[in-house]
């Protein structure tokens, strides 16, 4: 006869299995739903015209469902924000882990982590009320709600994540590796650039993935400060309409199961594929540089 402890143990296994299955199933169902609601648009427009069409006029008659300007909006905003957030985040992490005194690190690190908790709507609000008028006045441009502003705001959303996780990676580089470098007559800077950063590249790429995932799918900030114009931008001071902003702004007005509704879900599919590919590439990079053996992190 199985005793009560064994029964409890088996019960526990079943319990955790059910929880795990439920979570994964629900996420899977959401993806299925996304495709079910998005694919019907391709009866109206071809995949090619949908992705490469330059006109997004979903409510005109006849409507145009070309999301190319939306895709470009997303891509440009993401790349530009990465160009700001990666150097800022990683260099701040180097300062905290390698250069700052212990006391400063102990105070600053938790503050940086707290900043990651800033709600995106607050950052969007700041971009709208402070940064936009500033850009408009200083650069003498028609609107301060543009790609540059949105990228900047997204960058400051990602910096805390990138900084905090990179800092963990850099800090955990074994002391004896740093000592080996210094003992050979390398300066502190040479040691950071040639030993510490390469040894922590796997953790730093993870940090960048997480920080940029937050930026690429971010809706509220781009909705508030990107300007919302569905056209292919000519400069970084033009307004843009990234995919998440378009979906969020239009979903409430799109007739249920009309073509516009399907088109927005299809935009969601494109966004999903983008993030998916992005994660795969990032995972690949992190894996490629993962170290093996004694010096691994």
């Amino acid at each position, binding site marked *: 006869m199985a005793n009560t402890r064994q029964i409890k143990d088996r019960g526990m296994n079943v319990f955790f299995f059910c929880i795990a299955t439920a979570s994964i199933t629900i996420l899977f169902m959401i993806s299925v739903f996304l495709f079910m609601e998005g694919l019907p648009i391709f009866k109206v427009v071809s995949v090619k015209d949908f992705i490469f069409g330059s006109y997004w006029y979903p409510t005109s008659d006849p409507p145009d469902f070309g999301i190319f300007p939306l895709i470009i909006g997303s891509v440009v905003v993401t790349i530009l924000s990465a160009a700001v957030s990666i150097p800022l985040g990683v260099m701040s992490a180097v300062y905290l882990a390698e250069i700052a*005194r*212990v006391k400063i690190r102990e105070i600053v690190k938790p503050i940086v982590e707290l900043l990651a908790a800033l709600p995106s709507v607050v950052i969007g609000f700041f971009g709208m009320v402070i940064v936009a008028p500033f850009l408009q006045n200083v650069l003498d441009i028609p609107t301060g709600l543009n790609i540059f502003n949105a990228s900047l705001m997204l960058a400051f959303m990602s910096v805390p994540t990138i900084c905090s996780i990179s800092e963990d990676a850099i800090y955990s580089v*074994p002391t*004896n*590796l740093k*000592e*080996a*470098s*210094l*003992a*050979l*007559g*390398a*300066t502190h800077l*040479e040691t950071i650039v*040639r*030993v510490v950063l*390469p*040894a922590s590249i796997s953790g730093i790429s993870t940090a960048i993935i997480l920080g940029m995932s937050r930026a690429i799918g971010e809706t509220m900030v781009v909705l508030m400060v990107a300007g919302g114009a569905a056209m292919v931008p000519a400069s970084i001071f033009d307004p843009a309409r990234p995919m998440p902003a378009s979906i969020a702004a239009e979903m409430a007005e799109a007739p249920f199961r009309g073509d516009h509704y399907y088109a927005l879900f299809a935009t969601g599919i494109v966004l999903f594929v983008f993030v998916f590919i992005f994660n795969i590439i990032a995972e690949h990079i992190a894996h490629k540089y993962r*170290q*093996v*053996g*004694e*010096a*691994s992190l």
Partner: protein
Amino acid sequence: MERPLKMVSNHLHFYYGDFEALHDISLEFSENKVTALIGPSGCGKSTYLRCMNRMNDLIAYSRMEGELLLDGEDIYAPSVDVVTIRSRVGMVLQKPNPFPKSIFENIAYGLKVNGVKDKSKIASKVEKSLIRAALWGEVKDRLHDSALGLSGGQQQRLCIARALAVEPEVLLMDEPCSALDPIATQKIEELIHQLKITYTIIIVTHNMQQAARVSDITAFFYMGKLIEVNYTNTLFTRPKLKQTEDYITGRFG
């Protein structure tokens, strides 16, 4: 036969915060001799070794008093460039710590940071250093493989080769064999015999037989103090102090 003094410490004290880890150490290291530092764990011998290439500079809240001379010059003088000192005083640590780079790059690293740019010069230095560290034969066909794929003993010889490549004058070794098996240990000890022709070697070891085998002079540390120093033969056969005798015969420690 007296040789010129390579390094001298005069009344050296070292503190971690309020704790005095080294108390008034005065020692002389002659050129081309191997000096072994022995003593129980926590006696300060590693701390002392790390003073000699200013590695303790990295430790927050630590401070040193006294003088440490390299060729008669105080290496702690404000005008001294710590980077230059570290390229003159090489170090091999207890646990092999190759960089996560190729075998070749591990050795080329020290040359590159010290300003050697000529590729053929780097290549010949790498080869020479590996030959000196008795590793060339084992790795010559896979110089561009990761150094992390080597065995522990090979990694440690790689670390020695890496230290030799920058042509230091003094070589500090902090228990270089404690993570190695007896065969690898024997290879390293043979290497030390070869190397003392060119270098001044200071080695910290827990292994009394090793100290007896490789060193010319042995210094016994206990509780942050230098207890006794003498020619290795003399110290191991006729120690002056009871404390030293107890330690080397294994009665305490």
